[in-house]
């Protein structure tokens, strides 16, 4: 399998998209909307022209501004799944899939379980069905690279879970260099080997999902991966321990070393919830009002003051948590990361 290499600079409205990527497996780019994620995919597909750069798949050069090489979009072998899918509304599902060529259309209609919808128009399909048509259409083009623009964002929560695992399996089977952009870190972590955090056109951190969670480079990366983020001033207290005086008044401890203003990062699954705090406990503790209780499956997501925590439904009941009541969020110093404020 060839590697897709992209190095480009593309001026956008408020900043310049500037990055270098080498894509073998699946790379996900995560970032807030307007970070330049879609623009990157459009540049690789040849739909917008970067100010400068080079894009190549193995030794097949798609763009090289220094040498004046620029292939048209139809000459780059990309399978592009657009946000909202961009299915042709005036063509049937079959015609959509056949658009790139009749040869493989039937196989893909079968494979994506949309053969029974072949004569339907895109307007008559559900979100999940549209997504499958979009994938079938992109693959019927026989691409060498797959570009997925927010492939799951148009789906409701119920459909999303099943579509995500299907997509996961598909990407593994295809083994194509794939760039996927999303604003949802969970989707990125589920689908990609490498996740890049894109902010204002630059990659802040590119690492495996595990590493992004365990060693976020800065506060922005941490909050994007779903962590609680608190602000405070850090100072060493010996024993490889750092004390952070939070802006809200409490003091928490971390095994990370830092000095000065820092971001304190705690993941919801590292937080325990109690009714009262034992002063002799070595745990960090933050007391606060229970703001919201959201049941997700057999877990309950609780917010206590500025902290989000996840507890089992059983313990939520045992603790008699109720909105407006008081509770204590506790977490270990070893689970407390200190990061730069990004």
């Amino acid at each position: 399998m060839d590697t897709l290499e992209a190095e480009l600079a593309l001026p956008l409205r408020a900043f310049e998209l500037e990055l270098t990527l080498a894509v073998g497996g699946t790379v996900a780019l995560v970032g807030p909307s307007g970070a330049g994620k879609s623009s990157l995919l459009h540049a690789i597909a040849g739909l917008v022209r970067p100010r400068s750069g080079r894009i190549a798949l193995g030794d097949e050069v798609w763009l090289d501004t220094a040498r004046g090489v620029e292939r048209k979009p139809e000459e780059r072998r990309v399978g592009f799944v657009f946000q909202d899918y961009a299915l042709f509304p005036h063509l049937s599902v079959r015609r959509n899939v056949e658009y790139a060529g009749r040869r493989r259309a039937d196989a893909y209609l079968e494979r994506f379980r949309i053969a029974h919808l072949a004569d339907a128009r895109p307007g008559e399909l559900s979100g999940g069905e549209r997504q499958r048509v979009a994938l079938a259409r992109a693959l019927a083009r026989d691409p060498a690279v797959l570009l997925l623009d927010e492939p799951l964002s148009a789906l409701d929560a119920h459909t999303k879970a099943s579509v995500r695992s299907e997509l996961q399996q598909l990407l593994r089977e295809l083994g194509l260099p794939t760039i996927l952009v999303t604003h949802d870190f969970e989707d990125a972590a589920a689908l990609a080997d490498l996740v890049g955090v894109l902010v204002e056109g630059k990659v802040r951190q590119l690492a495996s999902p595990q590493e992004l969670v365990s060693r976020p480079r800065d506060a922005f990366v941490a909050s994007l991966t779903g962590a609680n983020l608190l602000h405070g001033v850090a100072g060493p207290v010996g024993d490889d321990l750092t004390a952070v005086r939070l802006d809200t008044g409490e003091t928490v401890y971390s095994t990370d070393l830092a000095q000065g203003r820092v971001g304190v990062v705690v993941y919801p699954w590292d937080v325990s919830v109690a009714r009262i705090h034992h002063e002799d406990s070595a745990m960090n503790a933050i007391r606060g009002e229970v703001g919201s209780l959201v049941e997700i499956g057999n877990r309950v997501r609780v917010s206590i003051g500025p902290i989000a925590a996840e507890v089992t439904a059983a313990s939520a009941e045992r603790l008699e948590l109720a909105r407006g009541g008081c509770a204590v969020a506790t977490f270990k110093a070893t689970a407390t990361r200190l990061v730069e404020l990004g």
Partner: protein
Amino acid sequence: MRRALTAVAFFAAALVALGFLALPIVAIFAHASPARLASQLSSPVVTDALVVSVETSAVAQALVLALGTPTAYLLATRRFPGRSLFVTLVELPLVLPPAVAGLGLLAALGRNGLLGSSLDALGLSIPFTRTAVTLAVAFVASPLYVRQGIAAFEAVDPSMVAASRTLGAGSTRTFFRVVLPLARPGLAAGFALSLARGLGEFGATIMFAGSLQGVTQTLPLAIYSEFDRNFDAALAMGALLVLVSAAVLLTLKLSVQWTPSRQSSRSRFALSSWS
């Protein structure tokens, strides 16, 4: 109490306005029996005018489609300096008094006009010929098509074009298989308006082409020349044009309603300023 009065005033105003708009249409059909009108349709003045109208409209509208479609597409999709000037130029004939349009055509293509001597050298004389009728019709009617066409092409979702390109289609194939079908409802609406405007053309035609029976006399010109000679014939032609106009309007409304996609919602909006 005051609210009730306001409501009554609104209903009364609407009643007067609608009555005023309907009255002339009703009068045309009420004045003579349908049989009497139909018998007039075979008189030479009427058949001659019908032939001139159909023939000139067919040629003029073919020109409008062939030249107007690429023009509308370029103006809708390209950004270049002076673009808004070109768009204004396209729209100008819409607000220009038809007599001025006819005058302009004479000044441009007449024997002593801007291009008159070059046309003369080619052995061409356009004024007061059927070609003049065709040109006058195309001049006043085409802006309706081009303007609507710009809106229709602008309403095509750019991601449709992008999708087509990434699926391996070049720009020509993309235009014919994606852009044109998606813009078609809007284009059809523009074409219907252009057709209706062209069939009703009077001022520019009489200035530039005159009113010679069997040569340049279209249905509206024939109505004008017949109404003090044979009022029944004028009424028959009037009734015919009412029916054609109604048919055009109906087709227009249906084509807008039966759009195959949501893509045309913007062109539907643009249409509301014309229909």
